[in-house]
C-alpha cells in the first residue's frame, strides 16, 4: 500500500558530526562495568569505527557491551550533538567530508541515548577501513516534522521518508499496522524509560534469557523492525496501556542490567492508532538496500 505524508513540506538540513572515539573513565584505574550478575567486565563498547559488525548481523552473542554497528559519530559540543541526535533520521544519507574515505556515502541506522548519545551510520566495510577517528561526516537530515495523512495521531520520531515508504505496512479498521519481526512486552522494557524520545534509544531487558526467548526476541538481528507494547514514546518513553511504539534494533546486547539491544524508536501512538503484524525478516539492511 502507499503511504502519503507531507513530503513537500519537509525541510532537509545538514547536520555534522565527527567519528567518535571510545571512552573509558580515568583514575583510579577501574575500567570495568558491572554485569547484571555483579561480575566486572571490560569489553568493547559504543563509539569508534566497528569493522566487523554491521546492520543485518546478530544482535546477541557479541563479546561487547551495546556495540554500535558501523560508524558512530558525535557533534563537537553537547548542544550541537543534541541537534545531530534529534534531527538524524533512520534512513538519511550521510557523506564523509574529510579523510581518506572522503565522498563515501552511508546511511543512518540508529541512535544511542543517555551516557553515549551517538548517531550510528552504516558504511560499506571497505570504506570503514579508510576512515579515521575525527573524520567529519555530514548527514542530509530529512524527516523531522513528518505527518502521515489520515494517521495524524501517530508521531514520527527520527524516521526518514525513505524508511517510512519502505516499511511493510497495511491499514486495517483505520489503524496503520507495521510489519515487525517481534514485539517487546512491557515488562522487558529497560534503559531509556522516562528518557527523551527525541533521539536516543530504548533498550530491552535481557538478563532473564528465558523470558527473552519466550517473547521471541532472542534471535533478533541488528536492523530488525520491532514493536514495543504498551509504550507511549511521544514525549519520553513510558508505560501506557494501548500505546505502541515501532523501532529499529540499533545496537547489540550487553551484559549490564537494563541494557539488552537498543531500539531506535521511529513511530508511536498512545491509544491503539498504531499497530503491528508479524513480518519475519523485516530488516532495514534490506529495506534501505545497505551495501555490505
Amino acid at each position, binding site marked *: 500500500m502507499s503511504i502519503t505524508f507531507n513530503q513537500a513540506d519537509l525541510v532537509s538540513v545538514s547536520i555534522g558530526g565527527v567519528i567518535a572515539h571510545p571512552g573509558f573513565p580515568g583514575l583510579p584505574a577501574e575500567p570495568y562495568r*558491572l*554485569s*547484571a*550478575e*555483579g561480575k566486572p567486565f571490560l569489553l568493547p563498547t559504543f563509539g569508534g569505527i566497528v569493522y566487523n559488525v554491521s546492520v543485518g548481523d546478530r544482535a546477541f552473542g557479541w563479546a561487547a557491551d551495546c556495540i554500535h554497528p558501523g560508524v558512530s559519530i558525535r557533534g563537537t559540543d553537547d548542544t550541537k550533538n543534541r541537534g545531530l541526535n534529534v534531527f538524524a533520521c533512520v534512513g538519511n544519507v550521510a557523506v564523509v567530508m574529510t579523510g581518506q574515505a572522503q565522498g563515501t556515502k552511508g546511511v543512518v541506522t540508529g541512535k544511542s*541515548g*543517555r*551516557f553515549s548519545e551517538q548517531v550510528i551510520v552504516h558504511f560499506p566495510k571497505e570504506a570503514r577501513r579508510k576512515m579515521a577517528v575525527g573524520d567529519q561526516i555530514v548527514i542530509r537530515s530529512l524527516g523531522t516534522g513528518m505527518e502521515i495523512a489520515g494517521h495524524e495521531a501517530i508521531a514520527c520520531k527520527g524516521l526518514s521518508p525513505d524508511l517510512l515508504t519502505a516499511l511493510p505496512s497495511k491499514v486495517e479498521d483505520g489503524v496503520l499496522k507495521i510489519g515487525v519481526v517481534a514485539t517487546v*512486552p*512491557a*515488562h*522487558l*522494557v*529497560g*534503559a*531509556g*524509560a*522516562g*528518557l527523551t*524520545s527525541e533521539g536516543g534509544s530504548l*533498550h530491552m*531487558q535481557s*538478563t*532473564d534469557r*528465558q*523470558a527473552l526467548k519466550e517473547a521471541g526476541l532472542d534471535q533478533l538481528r541488528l536492523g530488525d523492525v520491532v514493536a514495543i507494547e*504498551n509504550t*507511549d*514514546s*511521544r*514525549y*519520553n*518513553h*513510558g*508505560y*501506557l*496501556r494501548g500505546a505502541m511504539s515501532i523501532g529499529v534494533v540499533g545496537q547489540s546486547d550487553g551484559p*549490564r*542490567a*537494563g*541494557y539488552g539491544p537498543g531500539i531506535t524508536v521511529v513511530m508511536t501512538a*498512545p491509544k491503539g492508532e498504531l499497530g503491528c503484524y508479524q513480518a519475519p525478516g523485516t530488516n532495514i539492511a534490506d529495506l534501505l538496500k545497505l551495501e555490505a
Partner: protein
Amino acid sequence: MLSDLAGLTSNEDELVEMAVCGYVSQPSLRPGAYTHYPDGRGVILPGMFGITYNARAGDRAFGWAGDHVEPGVSIAHPDEKCDFALHYLTCMGNEAMVTSGLAKGARGVVTGEHARILVDFPDEVYEKLNIGDQIQIMAKGRGIALAEFPKIEFKKTSPALLHALRLSRAGNGALKVPVAMELPIEIMGSGAELNSEYVDQDLMSGDRQLMADLGVDQMRLGDLIAIRHADHHFGRSYREGAVSIALCIHGDSIMTGHGPGILTLITCAEGGIEFEIDKSANIANYFSIGAGA
C-alpha cells in the same frame, strides 16, 4: 526506636560510621525549559532542590502541583567526587546534623536519595535553615547484612531502619517484610539506565486509570514498596521470581516514564523475600517524623 530483630542476626557490630556532608541546595532552571505532559503540554513546576516546607515524609506522593517533589531538605556537595561519596555512603534512616547557620546543632533523619540527599527535620528547624547551610550525615549501614539470609542484599539501609522495618521469618523460611503496596514490574521506568547503587527508579504513572485501579495513587512519601520479578543487585533487571523491597522517596511526575521515586532497600534474585500489605508501613511512622510525628 530500635526494636527486636525477631531473632535475626545482623552484622551491625562490624559497620563503620563516618561523616559525609552536603549543603542545602537552591532550585535551578534552564531558560525556556518546560516539563511536558504526555500530550506534549509544557509546564513549569516546583518540587526538586531546596527546602520543601510543606511536603514531608508521610505526606501523599500524588496530587501535588509539583514535579518529583522532594520532601524536606535537599542537600548536595558541589565537588563531584565528594557528592558521590555522599550518595554512596548515606543510608536511609541515618541521623543528620546541621553544622552551620541559625539551625546549627539541629538533628534530622535521612529519608531519601534522589539527585540530592533528602533529610527530614522537626518543624521548627525549617524556618532557620538557609540555602547553603552545611548538613552532616553520620553515615552507617553500607555493607549491612543478615547472617540468616546471605542471598538477600540490603542497600542504603541504616541499622535504625533495619530494626524499624518489622522484619520476620515467614513459615517457608523467607524473610518477611510489611509493605504499604505492591507495584507491577511493567510500570517500573526511568532509572533502568542507572546502576542500582545510585538514586531511585521512578514508577511510570502515565496510565492514570491503572494508578487508580491498583490504588497506586494512594502512595505516600516514605511508603515501603514491593516489586516482584525485579532484581536490583547490580542495576535493575527483569528476572522472574526475584523480589525487591523499596522506599518511596519523592513525589509523582507529569513526565512520561516518570512518577514517584522508588529506592531499593532489599533485593533477592531468587525469591527469598515475602511481603504482606500493611498501609502503616511508612518510615514517617517508623521514625515518628514528618506526617508521622
